[in-house]
């Protein structure tokens, strides 16, 4: 894991196995990142859930790079490159039939914005942006 200061933005990069056994480690790191951004419990929990569900969809094979940028009350996350074509399709699905629960719908509820960027060799990078709850 590396961390650096870049023009007021803190940047943290993690390269972790996708194996289920490391989910807790990733969740702890995300919690630490959210804490640094002064997120409340709920916003932190949302960001952890978003990343957890995304990683679960990748199938648990290989490794993943996750980078975080901590701005003023915001955490921007980039996950990938990933080889998951299905993941890109799942993210581009509409919210689905009534009574169903797609990955896109889950992310819509727990992060402020998300998207997919093409990467080299047909791979993708998933972007998430989460704002902290405004404090009085």
């Amino acid at each position: 894991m590396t961390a650096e200061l870049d023009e007021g933005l803190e940047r943290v990069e993690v390269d972790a196995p996708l194996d289920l056994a490391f989910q807790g480690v990733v969740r702890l790191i995300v919690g630490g990142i959210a804490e640094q951004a002064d997120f409340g419990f709920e916003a932190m929990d949302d960001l952890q859930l978003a990343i957890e569900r995304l990683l679960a969809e990748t199938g648990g094979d290989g490794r993943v790079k996750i980078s975080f940028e901590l701005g003023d009350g915001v955490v921007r996350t980039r996950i990938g490159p990933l080889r998951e074509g299905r993941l890109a399709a799942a993210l581009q699905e509409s919210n689905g039939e009534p009574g169903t629960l797609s990955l896109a719908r889950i992310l819509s509820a727990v992060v402020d914005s998300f998207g997919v960027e093409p990467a080299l060799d047909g791979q993708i990078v998933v972007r998430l942006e989460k704002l902290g709850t405004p404090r009085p």
Partner: protein
Amino acid sequence: MSGSGNGARAARQREDRELLRRYHEQGDTAAREQLIARHLPLVRSLARRYAGRGEPLEDIEQVGAIGLIKAIDRFDVERQVSLATYATPNVVGEIKRHFRDKGWAIRVPRSLQELNARMSSAIDDLTGRLGHSPSVGEIAESLGTTKEEVLEALEVGSAYTALSLDAGPAGSDDDGDPMETIGGEDAEFDRSEDRATIGPALERLPDREREILRMRFEEGLPQTQIAERVGLSQMHVSRLIRRSLAAMREELE
């Protein structure tokens, strides 16, 4: 693989399918027994991967056999997937759950378990008092501990939740390891087919969990409001959401 190898495998799959039909359509329990016996070598093979981790191999095999039986009982004969492919994640999931369940009691320090237990009411109290979702720093201060310990204790709760999926619907138990599936194309087909049936996976959740998911992801309510509506703590709601989503995902494996 040789042509004769493929042929033998295809013949074996046809026999399995016939036995599955006899069991599911005619209630022939002898066919079920035969299926169990035919696939015990698969269980033994998978169990051996988990040998040498402090559990007798025989016990691991028995746990794996439970996964096999669940797979046979839940198998849908209309699915175009082999029983071995379908059963493998069930068997592995059952074995991994067994290890994880034991791990909880052994590895998690009591102090973290206790902190986790105190945290739930602390978060609710602080949310009410401060008028916003408390930060990790605020939770730590109210409990007289460090931010790091709060994060660790939260993680302990998440880990425990992940281990407790037995309480959820009858899922296939594991997030799956591609090394532990047989017949890659079948598994792939199975997964994409099931993605379209996430609705039924949602329907199999208990009413309370399904209602919580509906409030969170259809109504877009925050955890605090859901917690008030259902009379649970915010942390409990968070765990139920996480557990339900994981259970639905596992059901699709």
